[in-house]
C-alpha cells in the first residue's frame, strides 16, 4: 500500500487524489441509489419516465459533483466555509420574502428555470461553518461560554428562519446536526444535559406556537387509528403496505398498496414502504445494511482524519445522513410522526440528491486530505 505520510504538508497532485479517492464508497452509494431507481421504475408501472430516468441522471450529475468537490483541497473548503454559510443564510432569508409556497409552507426559490431549496444548502453550510469555527478552538476553549456565542448563533439564526417558513422537520434536523458538531468538538456533557432539560421545558411553549397541521401530525403519530381516513391515513396505509409485504415481499412491481394508490407519496417520502411491500423484509434489511456500511465507512473517515475541520465536517455529514435515513424509515414504520424528510439517495427529488452528493463530496475531500494537517489558527488561511 501507499505510504500516505509522504504527502503530509505538501499539496497532492490530481492523479494522487484519484488514487486516494474511495471508489468503493461511491459504488456503495450507487448501489443504494439503484434500489431507488428500481422502485421509481416500479412506481411508474414499469417505466423509466417520469421518475426513474431523471433520478438516474441526477445521480450521475451528483456523482460528478461528488468527484469535483472531493478533489478540491480541504483547506479551500475551510476557507470557503463562512462565505458559503453567508450565501446560504441570505437565500434562506430570501425564501421567507419571495419564496414559492408549496404544501402549506414556503420552501422553494425560483431562479429562472431553477428551483432551489435554500434549506438544503444551509444543511451543508451549517456543517462547514461550525467545523470551521471549532477547528480553531482547543478542547479547553470549546467549553468556554463566550466561545459558544458565535456557534450558537450560527445554528439558531437559520433554524429560526426555517421555522418561520414553516418547516419544522428541517429546523429539527439543522439543530440536531449542529448539536452533533458541538458534541464531537468536545463540549462538556453538562451543556448537553442543561440544554436537553431546557428543550424539554420549552416544549409547552413551542407547542402553543405550532401550526395545526404540525400538531395534527403529532396527534396522529401518537394514535394513527384516531382518524384512519384522515390524518392517520398515511401512517396506517404505510404500515399495512410494509406488513403485507412480509418476509419476501409481493414481488417487484406487484405491490398492491403502492400501485393502487393506497400508499401516498410513494415515489418520495414513502418510497421505503414501497420497497418493503414489494421486496419484503429481505429487501428492506438489505437497504438498511447498505446504509449502515456507508455510515461505518464515514465514521472511519472521521476517525482517520488528522485535522479537526475534516473530522468535524465528515462526522457532521455522516450523522446528518444518518438522521435522514433514521427519521424517514422510522416515520414510515410508524415510529416517528410524519415529517417531510426524504430517504436519502432513494427518494425522488433533485435538490436533496444533489446536496447530499455535494456533502459526500466534502466527506471524500476530508478522506483524501485526511493526512493534511491544518494549523488551528485562522492566520494560515486568510
Amino acid at each position, binding site marked *: 500500500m501507499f505510504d500516505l505520510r509522504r504527502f503530509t504538508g505538501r499539496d497532492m497532485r490530481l492523479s494522487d487524489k484519484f488514487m486516494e479517492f474511495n471508489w468503493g464508497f461511491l459504488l456503495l452509494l450507487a448501489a443504494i441509489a439503484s434500489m431507488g431507481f428500481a422502485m421509481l421504475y416500479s412506481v411508474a408501472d414499469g417505466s423509466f419516465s417520469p421518475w426513474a430516468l431523471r433520478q438516474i441522471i441526477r445521480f450521475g450529475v451528483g456523482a460528478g459533483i461528488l468527484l469535483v468537490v472531493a478533489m478540491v483541497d480541504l483547506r479551500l473548503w475551510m476557507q470557503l466555509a463562512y462565505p458559503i454559510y453567508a450565501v446560504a443564510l441570505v437565500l434562506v432569508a430570501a425564501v421567507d420574502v419571495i419564496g414559492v409556497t408549496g404544501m402549506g409552507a414556503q420552501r422553494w426559490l425560483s431562479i429562472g428555470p431553477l428551483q432551489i431549496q435554500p434549506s438544503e444548502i444551509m444543511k451543508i453550510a451549517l456543517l462547514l461553518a461550525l467545523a470551521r469555527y471549532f477547528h480553531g478552538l482547543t478542547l479547553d476553549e470549546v467549553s468556554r461560554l463566550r466561545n459558544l456565542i458565535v456557534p450558537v448563533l450560527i445554528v439558531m439564526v437559520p433554524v429560526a428562519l426555517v421555522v418561520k417558513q414553516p418547516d419544522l422537520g428541517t429546523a429539527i434536523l439543522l439543530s440536531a446536526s449542529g448539536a452533533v458538531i458541538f458534541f464531537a468538538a468536545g463540549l462538556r456533557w453538562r451543556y448537553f444535559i442543561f440544554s436537553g432539560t431546557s428543550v424539554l421545558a420549552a416544549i409547552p411553549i413551542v407547542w402553543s406556537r405550532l401550526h395545526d397541521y404540525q400538531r395534527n401530525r403529532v396527534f396522529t403519530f401518537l394514535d394513527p387509528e384516531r382518524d384512519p381516513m384522515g390524518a392517520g391515513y398515511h401512517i396506517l396505509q404505510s404500515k399495512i403496505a*410494509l406488513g403485507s409485504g412480509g418476509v419476501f415481499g409481493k414481488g417487484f412491481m406487484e405491490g398492491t398498496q403502492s400501485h393502487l394508490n393506497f400508499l401516498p407519496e410513494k415515489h418520495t417520502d414513502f418510497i421505503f414502504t414501497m420497497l418493503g411491500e414489494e421486496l419484503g*423484509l429481505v429487501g*428492506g434489511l438489505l437497504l438498511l445494511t447498505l446504509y449502515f456500511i456507508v455510515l461505518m465507512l464515514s465514521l472511519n473517515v472521521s476517525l482517520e482524519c488528522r485535522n479537526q475541520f475534516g473530522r468535524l465536517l465528515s462526522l457532521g455529514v455522516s450523522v446528518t445522513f444518518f438522521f435522514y435515513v433514521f427519521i424517514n424509515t422510522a416515520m414510515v414504520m410508524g415510529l416517528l410522526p410524519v415529517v417531510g424528510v426524504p430517504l436519502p439517495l432513494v427518494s425522488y427529488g433533485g435538490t436533496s440528491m444533489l446536496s447530499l452528493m455535494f456533502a459526500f463530496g466534502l466527506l471524500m475531500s476530508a478522506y483524501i486530505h485526511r493526512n493534511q494537517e491544518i494549523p488551528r489558527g485562522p492566520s494560515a488561511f486568510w
Partner: protein
Amino acid sequence: MGQIPGRDGSRYKTFSRRAILLGGAQGAAFVVLAGRMYYLQVLKSDEYTMLAEENRVNVRLIAPLRGNIVDRYGRPLASNRQNYRAVLIAEQTPDIEATLDKLARIVEITPYDRRKIMRDVKRSPRFLPITVAEDLTWEQFAQVNINEPDLAGVQPDVGETRHYHYGSELAHVVGYVSPVSESEIEKAGDDEPLLRLPGFRTGKLGIEKRYDASLRGVAGASHVEVNAYGRVIRELSKDPGKPGQEVVLTLDMAVQQAAWDRLADQSASAVVMDVHSGDIMAFISTPAYDPTQFNMGYGDKEYRALLNDPYLPLVNKAIAGLYPPGSTFKTVVAIAAMEAGVDPSHSVHCNGAYTLGNHDFHCWKKGGHGAMDMHNAIKHSCDVYFYDTARRIGIDVIEKTAKQFGLGQSYDLDVPGEKVGVVPGRDWKLATQGVSWQQGETLITGIGQGFVLTTPLQLAVMTARIANGGYAVTPRLTRAIGGKLIVPKAAPKIEVRPESVAMAQGGMNGVSNEPGGTAYRSRIAEPGMELAGKTGTAQVRRISKAERDTGVIKNENLEWRQRDHALFIAFAPVQAPRYAISVVIEHGGSGSGAAAPVARDIMKAMLLRDPEIQQAINPAPPPVVKVKEG
C-alpha cells in the same frame, strides 16, 4: 491511527471517543429499525396482509333477476322489463349544467330532478354513473344514442324494472315492489347485503311480499380490484348469483280479466274458486291502485287521492271487506235446519211479517209468500220461513254449521289483510258485548243480517263446500314455486248428512233454474253450464216503522252510501259442480238485480275455459293455451 501530540491530541481523543459513541448510537438505532421491521413484516404480517386485501378487493353485488309471477297457464303477470335510462358520468363532462340543458331537449328534466341530480353528483365519486333519466321511450332512448357525441358524459343504459302486465287488475293479488325501506334494512341487519344495493326493490304487498324470498333470488358478486379512489381496475372473479324463482298462481287470467271488466267501475269484489282443489281462479277487488306507480314512487297528491277515495282502492275487499251475507246465508241455515232434524217439507206460512214477542220481523216481500217449504223458501228467499226455522233450531246449530262451511275464519291466503268476520253465538256475544244472546238475534241471524259478517272469500268457500257435497276445501292462490307444484291438502269431509247439503244445492238450483226463483233471470240457459245460485241483499241502514208504512225507499233514490249491498253466490255446472263464485257489489242495490248478472257472466267465462265443458257444449276445439312447464 497516528499519534498526534500536544493539545491537539486531547481534542483528537475526545473526538474519537464521542464519534465512536455516536457510531454505537447509530448501530443501536438500526437495530431498533430492524426490530420494527421484523415486528411489522413477520409478526404482524398476516393482519396487515388481510387489511391490504380489504383495501384492494371490493365486492360488488350483482342483483339477481327477480322471478316472474305467472297465472296457472304461464301467462306473465309480473316480470322484468328493460328500463331505458340515461346516466351521467360527471368526470366526462366539463359542464354538467350545460349537458343537462342539452339532454332536457330530448327528455323532460324538471327543476326537482335537476336538484336531485346535482346532489347525487356532489355525493358520489366523479367516475360513477348517476341516473339522470329513467323509463325513456324507445324514441327518446334512440335520440340519446344518436346525440351521444354532443351530450358529453351522458351514456344510454339499460336496466331492469318490474313490470306489471295487468296493472291495477291484479294489484290486490300480486301486490308491488318498491325501494327498500330503512326499517327493512334494520331488520335484515347484515344478513342481506342486497337490500343496501342502490335501486334494489323488495315486495311490499301481496304475492310480491309473501314470496319475496323466493322471487328475489340469490345475489351474485363480482370481486373487483379497486384503487384508493374506488375506481375498478379489473375484475378478479364473478359469481352471477341465482335468479329468483317463478311463482305460478292459481288464477286464470282470462277469467280474471272478464271479471274485472264486468266490475271495473264499481266498488265490488268477486272470488271464483275451484270447488275441489280450492284454486282461486279469479280474485277481484275494485277499484285498485297502479302497482307500477308504487314502484316508481306515488306522488303525495295521488296517494292522498287514493286514501280519500270512497271506493277504497287500497282495501282488498275480497278478503278485508266485511259484509252481512244477507240471504246467501240462508243456504247454511237450511243445512243447519236439516241437521237439526227439520222436515224440509214442513211448511211455514208467510204473510209478510213474523211476530216475536212485541216485535215484527218483516219479510222483504210485502204481503208475504204464502205457504213455504224449505226448497221454496230458498228459491224465493223467504225471510219469514227462515225467521221461524232459526227460532226453532236455535243459534247454536246455525253457528256450528256456518263455521263448518267456512265462515268466521281466515285461510292464511298469500295476500295480507284477511279478516275473520263474525259468526255470532252465545259465547261470542257474552265475550264481546257482555250481554247474553237474545232470541230476536237468532231470527235476524237466520236471514244473514245482524251480527254476522263475512268476506267475499268466505262466501266463495261456503259456496264451494256446498257445491262439492260438504268437503272442507280451503282456498289457495299459489300453484307452484320455482317449478315445484304445491299439492293441495285433501279436503276433509264435513260432518253433515249428504241430504242436508243436497237440500241446499237443490234450493240454489231452484233460485236460478226454476221459474220464480230470485235469480231465474240471470240463469245460464246453455245445457251443461247451468249454475245454481243464491241472491243476497244486505241492508246497511235501519228501516224505520214509518218508512215501512209509507213504503220502503227504493235503492235508486238513496244516496250511494245508504244503498244495500248486492250479493250473489253460485256454483256450476249444477250437474257436476266445478266452480264456485261469490260477488259482492257495495251499495249495488239488490242481489238479484246487480250481483247475479255479473256472477253469471263471470261464471260463464269460467266455464268456457274448462276444456271438458267446452267439449260438452261446443264440439269445436278449445282455444290453445300455452302452458309453461315449471
